[in-house]
Structure formats: structure tokens, C-alpha cells
């Protein structure tokens, strides 16, 4: 790949630290679900994949990025501040009554495309956006980031059929395959099995990558526009809680907050970039 990954690696550490501090103020948020998709978001926003415009969250030519796993929508906020969509001070007011940024994405927040939090809507919304772009001859694309647990929702697959039937190659779904839902491991609770194969059988151009590897993510996104009319899905194999050892793959940390000692440990660990 031509895109140098050094700046992206630095972004990984920056975003994890920013998210952790954002959550530690009010002791609110979903840290592990956000941490598993850090590299996905950084690749989209800073890896030259998605089109966005500094200070212009509503630019008509922007790509529409929708975090369908809305509980982790907070992961976009530091990025939006960086892109000048709102003042950085808003990150310090996360979930506060006087603040702009809530725990779940609200469409009134600059940069947030639509309300999210209830699972299973992202593929349909993305398909609607992508279909409208095709009808209007516009070049923007729709990206939807799903959780793997979200793939239990039937509407995901209903809309997957629609997107393939209508050849929406301007729609990209990333499944954050972090292996956990609230109550435990997906494969133990109700096996999702071969997700790549399932999407492929629905008519999608399906790839499976290491979701913490910039070279692999960049290569996967480079398939956009080369899918022979198929929508693209990237199964990003990730670790829930990536970067804080005691949160990694520990389902009980879904929305738990660390105590003082754990906070110190987490901060120390976040000084060492888990991605290299």
C-alpha cells in the first residue's frame, strides 16, 4: 500500500487515550466496544479512505459514515473535534447536560449521520443512502460499521439482500468482529459461524481481515470500486477492549467503569501503543 501507516499508528494511540479520558470524566461510555473499532475508524477518516471535509460536516460530497453499533458511536467524537466539526472542549462535556455529545449518537451532532443505538438499522440506512446516490448520479459512498452481535438482528440480512440485488457497490459494511456481546462470546451463546461466507452467500464481496492491522484494512478498503457491482463487506477480526489488558475479551467490561487502581493501570497501558 502507498499510504504510510506510521501516522495511523500514532492516531491509534491518540484515539484510545482521548476516548478513555472522555469516558473517565463522567464515568460513562462503552470503552471496549469503541476500542475494538479504533483502527477501522482511523483508517476511514485518516487513511485516505473516506471523503470528508475539514470543518464541513454537511458537505454534500462527503461519504456518509454510520456507526450502526451505536453504543460505540462515541468513538467518532474525538475524530469530529479533530476535523473541526465542534470545539474540542465538547469532549470534556461528554454526557453532561450542558454538553453536545451524548453516550449514543444523535443526528443533531455535527458529523453524526443518523440516530443510532438500536441495532440492526445500519445496512438498511446505508442501502437507502447508497441507492439515493445512484439515483441522483452522485459519487459519495455509504459506510456502515456493525457489531458482530448486531448480525443477530434479522433486518441486517433483509437489507443485505436488497443491497446486493440493487448492485450497491457504493455501500461498504464493516463488521467489527470483536467476538463478544453483552453476555459472553457469540460463538458460545449463539454461533454466528462463518460470517464472511454468510455475507458472500448474500451476494456481497466479502473480505476477512485483522481489524487492528492498518495494512490489511487499507488493502480491504482498496476493493471499493473493484467489486464488480457488489456491495463490499469487511469482516474486521478484532479484540474487544483492545489496548487495556483487563478489558480485552472480557464481556463483563462492556459498560463497566474502572476503579482508581484500574484507571492507573489502563493509563499506563495506553502509553504503550497496542498496535505496531
Amino acid at each position, binding site marked *: 500500500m502507498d499510504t504510510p501507516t506510521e501516522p495511523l499508528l500514532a492516531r491509534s494511540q491518540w484515539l484510545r487515550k482521548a476516548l478513555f479520558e472522555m469516558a473517565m470524566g463522567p464515568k460513562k461510555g462503552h470503552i471496549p466496544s469503541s476500542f475494538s473499532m479504533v483502527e477501522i475508524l482511523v483508517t476511514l477518516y485518516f487513511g485516505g479512505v473516506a471523503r470528508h471535509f475539514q470543518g464541513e460536516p454537511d458537505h454534500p460530497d462527503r461519504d456518509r459514515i454510520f456507526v450502526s453499533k451505536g453504543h460505540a458511536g462515541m468513538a467518532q467524537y474525538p475524530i469530529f473535534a479533530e476535523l473541526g466539526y465542534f470545539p474540542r472542549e465538547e469532549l470534556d462535556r461528554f454526557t453532561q447536560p450542558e454538553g453536545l455529545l451524548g453516550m449514543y449518537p444523535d443526528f443533531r451532532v455535527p458529523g453524526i449521520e443518523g440516530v443510532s443505538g438500536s441495532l440492526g*438499522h445500519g445496512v438498511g440506512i446505508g442501502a437507502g443512502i447508497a441507492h439515493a*446516490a445512484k439515483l441522483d448520479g452522485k459519487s459519495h459512498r455509504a459506510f456502515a460499521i456493525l457489531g458482530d452481535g448486531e448480525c443477530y438482528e434479522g433486518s441486517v440480512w433483509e437489507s443485505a439482500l436488497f443491497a446486493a440485488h440493487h448492485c450497491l457497490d457504493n455501500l461498504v459494511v464493516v463488521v467489527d468482529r470483536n467476538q463478544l456481546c453483552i453476555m459472553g462470546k457469540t460463538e458460545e451463546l449463539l454461533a454466528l459461524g462463518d460470517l464472511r461466507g454468510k455475507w458472500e452467500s448474500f451476494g456481497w464481496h466479502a473480505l476477512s481481515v485483522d481489524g487492528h492491522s492498518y495494512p490489511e484494512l487499507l488493502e480491504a478498503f482498496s476493493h471499493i470500486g473493484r467489486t464488480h457491482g457488489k456491495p463490499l463487506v469487511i469482516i474486521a477480526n478484532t479484540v474487544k477492549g483492545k489496548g487495556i489488558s483487563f478489558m480485552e475479551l472480557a464481556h463483563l467490561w462492556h459498560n463497566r467503569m474502572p476503579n482508581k487502581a484500574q484507571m492507573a493501570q489502563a493509563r499506563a497501558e495506553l502509553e504503550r501503543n497496542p498496535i505496531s
Partner: protein
Amino acid sequence: MAASPLMRDVFIETFTEAARRNPNLIFISADFGAKALDVVREELPRQFLHPGIAEQSMVDIGAGLAMEGKQVFLYAMGPFISARCYEQIKSLLVTMNLPITLLGVGVGLGYDHATMTHFVLEDLACMRALPGMEILTPCDGESTREMARFAIEDPALRYIRLDRQPFPSVYGGRFAESLQNGVATVAAGEGLAIVTSGNFVHQAMQAREILRQEGIDLGVIDLFRIKPMNHKAVLESLAPYSRLITLEEQCLDGGFGSALLECLSDQGRSVAVKRLGVPGLYRAQNGNRAHLHQLYGISLDDTLCAAREAAKQV
């Protein structure tokens, strides 16, 4: 005299006329047809979508299209456009106030022989609970056409409830002037009135004709916009009456009569109201819609009995 048109054909013909001029109008049907829809499919294929028998996905896709500025009409059988995709409607259309028209066909007991899964006896209660949802129920071709024009010209989040059956004209060209009021006096009476909507406007008119022979002058009020209810216009329409009957093809809990009682109570209007509607149970029995009306106590005979009883108290 020409047969009365089906409401769905009237609505879709109105849509088609507008859609020919405006490529931004999109019609999505979850596998529910209409004669008039065949024209859209053939003539305007870029403005028609079939999302499969998948109402939940249909709402999600419609939301995405609307977020990009498309004017979207979602069309399905009444039970499936209301309850089946309620969460999608709530989480996306309501929260973002997307200007989408939801079209449900066969409300009430329209799908009589299909029985319980197809009965739509709670759509008013559930849709009424959603903030910002406008709810309209036409009773003839004319009111359907005017509501379609309104939905096209003034996009908003709206649920329009179409009957499965055709009904003869009620308004004779006068509906447009009542549209903004949300309520219309179909026939003025003396002391006693029935407040209803949709198919039951016709049953109320039948009752009125029969009772006239008995010296009872029953008023008939069509409360075709249950939400947002125009309290001022409703109170004005009901002012001449000391007793009211509400007649609905809905479960009584949270339905049409409930909405009117809330309005009267909130506005401090004290008036005796008898509610006729489906009691709180699902029952199915072979038989047509009239037969089911008897089963549920909302038949023409039941209406006459309630009116005679009320007339004694006027």
C-alpha cells in the same frame, strides 16, 4: 353510476401523477400490490422499490433515502406497516422526524377471513403513542385523494390508514375545505352524535337513516385526523351535542374513543360518551366483516341500540 374506486388505487394514482413530474418521489411496497401500482412499476421503475416481504428493512431503507432528500412512501398491509416495524418507525423516523408517509391497507377488520394476524385493531393505539406522528383515516375516494395530495405537497411523518374495501362518496366535493380541521360534520343532528372515521362513517350514516324514521336525529362526525387532534375544531363540531357515541374498529384500549375522551377531558368539556369498539380480546371466527362486527358488538344493530339508548337521555 361508476363503481366506487379502491382507496389504494386512488392514492397511488394521485402519487403517480405527481411522481411523473417529480423524480424525487419514491414508492416502496413490501410485496403488496394494487392495480394502480402496476402503472408505477412499468412507467416509473426508478421510483419504485420492492424490498421483499421485509417491512423492517423497508423502513430502514426508506429512512436512508429520506436522509438523502427523497420523498418516500412506504406501503404495506396495515398490520405489517404498523406493528411489525414499530421499532424502526420509532427509532429512525420519529427520532429524526423524517418526512415519510406510511400507507397501511386493510385497517380494522378489513382482512376479515385472514383473521387475527391480519386484523389491525391496535394500530391507532400504537401509532398514537409516537411523538410527531400524524394519523389520517379517509372514508371515501375523495378524502383519500385529498390526503394523498396533502402528503405529496406537505411532506411530514404521516400514517395514512386505507380501508381494504371501496366506499361510496361521502363528501361530494367538500372534503378539501375540512382537511386542515381534521374533523368534519358529515351530517348535523340534534342532541346526539356519533364520532367515528373510515368505514364506520358509512355505518353511522346507515344508522342515521334508520333512526330518522324513529324521530331520532343522529349527527355524524368524521374525526379523520386523530393525531394531532385539532382540539378547537373538535370541540366546535361537538358543541351542539349533549351525548356522544364513538364507533371504532379498534381495541378500546388506547384507540379512537380513548383519544377523543382525552381531548374532552383535557379541554374541560363534560359530556356523556358511550364507546363502541372491540373489547380487549382477540377472537376469530369464520365469517365476513359484518359477521365479525356482530361478534365484537360493533355491528349496525349494536350502533342502533347504543343510539336509541343514548337518545333517551338527551
